[in-house]
């Protein structure tokens, strides 16, 4: 089922890209095509698959010859094509806690249904969430595959970098031992250079999307950095990020706004809603641009191709959802200021212990910095619980409130 979905996507997107006229936006289609091809490769059985936690170093795994993917990608994909509810029901019937994260529950349902290709190895990460760690461990148990757990420290000090870098060396040793696949230094250097090229384009994307009005179209950068992390270390990553950079540069130069009539800008916290919902069309209709997603901007320095392991470790530790909350609070406030937003939207994804725990403090930090926050209380994957009327009223009321504030803020400026 999932393989057919990806195959259809690839065919459709290839045709649309072939038909695209000069000047027509193609970055999002290029991104979607590469993501669909990644999905197809996972399900084709051609390359050895590694199911991973979301923070795994995917470029390092590419260098070893794996087709790696994080399990949340499955939940998001199935939610996107409306297939998540029966899998959620199945996972719950098999004992998954209905109050747990639905990205993970959907993945468990997919495992129970035999929809997930059997991996050669499973690589868990202890961050950003212990729920994800538990699900990846469960996946290894059910599929009877070797498991490696990366223990991601909660500190960003040099000692933490060294500790994590050492584990990454151990991971390479583990992969060689259990799969016979080894890492060639030349291949690793090539991969890191591709990662750095993609990173460079991503930094440019960050710079370009700071323009007011934003040159990015409303759905352009949905799920961007999370999925691009799966393409790092490959030409595909360079292609996708380069396509975005070029397109945004052109639009910024031509003063062509991504959203005609942008009147308000918001920061989107954590994840987007993955199923088709009226939220994004409504924001568009109300003239609200999502100027930046919390997880999109680059937070890590370039990686040294001659000694990449500390760089991989720094990248993992720099993720806003890793470590003490102070880092995340600084990050979101900096984004709100840098992207000149009017407020922030927190979907408050149901079942995300980390998001729920942080919610009040994120709320307070942004409010104290002068940015109102809308808490939507939705499940980003489970469409069964979506209450359209309530969500619509909250968004409209929030936009009315921001619009009332806008003249005062402009006067202050």
């Amino acid at each position, binding site marked *: 089922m999932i393989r057919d979905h990806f195959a259809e996507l690839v065919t459709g997107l290839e045709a649309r890209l072939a038909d695209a006229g000069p000047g027509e936006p193609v970055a999002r289609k290029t991104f979607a095509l590469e993501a669909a091809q990644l999905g197809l490769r996972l399900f084709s059985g051609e390359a050895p698959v590694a199911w991973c936690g979301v923070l795994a170093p995917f470029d390092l795994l590419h260098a070893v010859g794996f087709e790696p993917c994080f399990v949340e990608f499955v939940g998001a994909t199935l939610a996107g094509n409306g297939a998540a509810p029966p899998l959620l029901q199945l996972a719950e019937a098999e004992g998954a806690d209905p109050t747990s994260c639905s990205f993970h529950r959907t993945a468990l349902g997919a495992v129970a249904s035999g929809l997930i290709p059997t991996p050669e190895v499973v690589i868990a990460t202890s961050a950003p969430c212990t729920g994800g760690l538990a699900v990846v461990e469960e996946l290894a148990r059910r599929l009877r595959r070797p498991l490696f757990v990366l223990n991601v420290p909660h500190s960003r000090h040099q000692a933490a970098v060294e500790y994590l870098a050492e584990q990454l060396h151990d991971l390479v040793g583990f992969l060689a031992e259990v799969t016979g696949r080894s890492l060639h230094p030349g291949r690793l250097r090539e991969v890191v250079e591709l990662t750095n090229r993609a990173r460079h384009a991503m930094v440019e994307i960050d710079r370009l999307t700071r323009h007011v009005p934003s040159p990015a179209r409303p759905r352009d950068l949905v799920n961007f950095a999370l999925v691009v992390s799966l393409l790092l270390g490959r030409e595909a990553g360079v292609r996708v990020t380069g396509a975005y950079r070029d397109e945004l540069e052109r639009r910024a130069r031509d003063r062509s706004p991504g959203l005609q009539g942008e009147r308000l800008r918001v920061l989107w916290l954590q994840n987007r809603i993955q199923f088709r919902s009226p939220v994004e069309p409504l924001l568009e209709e109300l003239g609200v641009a999502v100027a930046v997603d919390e997880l999109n901007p680059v937070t890590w320095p370039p990686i040294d191709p001659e000694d990449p392991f500390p760089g991989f470790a720094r990248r993992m530790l720099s993720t806003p959802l890793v470590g003490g909350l102070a880092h995340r609070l600084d990050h979101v406030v900096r984004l709100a200021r840098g992207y000149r937003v009017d407020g922030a939207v927190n979907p408050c994804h149901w079942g995300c212990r980390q998001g729920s725990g942080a919610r009040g403090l994120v709320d307070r930090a942004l*409010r104290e910095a002068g940015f*109102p926050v809308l*808490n939507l*209380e939705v499940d980003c994957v489970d469409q069964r*619980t979506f*209450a359209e*009327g*309530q969500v619509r*009223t*909250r968004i*409209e*009321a929030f936009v*009315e*409130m921001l619009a*009332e*504030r806008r003249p005062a803020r402009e006067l202050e400026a």
Partner: protein
Amino acid sequence: MTGPLFLGLDVGSLSCDAVLVDRNGRSVAWTVLPTGARVLDTVDRTRREVLELAGVGPAAVAATVATGYGRERVEGRIAAVTEITCHARGITALLPGTDVLVDIGGQDSKAVRLDHSGRVVDFAMNDKCAAGTGRFLEAMARALEVDVPDLGDLDAEARTGLTLSSMCTVFAESEVVSLVASGADVAEIVAGLHRAIAARTQGLVRRVAPQFDGLEVAMSGGVARNRGVVRALAAALGRPVTVPDEPDTVGALGAALIARDRALAADPAP
């Protein structure tokens, strides 16, 4: 009646409310009808009734603004504005200086934080569940076999009030039935219900105003007619809770005032 009038229609889940104001923002007529299943018919009836009460025809209405969950379905409106903004506008006209407005309607409860000029600066709403709203009270009144308007004073004789173990409408209803069957005093049950609603509402208020000291708190929506809930909320907040004369028409009044503001801004002499 001379001069243009401005109509606010609040299409809620339990009631459909209409208020007509004149160009000075004075209320000319108002009405409240049960929404029922045929929302559009009710909107038409409410509109006709308020015009009849004002003694004018449809042509006298220069602009209409709709609010409430059915706001998008009202024809002939110049805008659909959310209940949050409309209730804030209405309460500021009736009780200037309000810092926090609690609005409990048929299936929504909201706490709205206002600044000194009556602008909304924050709001919080109940999540998915209608516990503690008008529908909840309807179900409890049914279980107690009393009329909803009578609930408000039934707790006057209560000494301590019972504690309900669940605020889920379904479970609370069956718990109330069990309590009645076991001979519990109705006054104590009602006091427990009011206190439970107040505790839940206090949580909403805290989300928009962490400190209650010195706050001017007002309440709107149909549940504000229940004196027991208002008393319990005031006790929970440690602040007086002021209720305007017609609390269920505050949203419609706000909508009418917004219609007036927008129409006069577009054409000062309509």
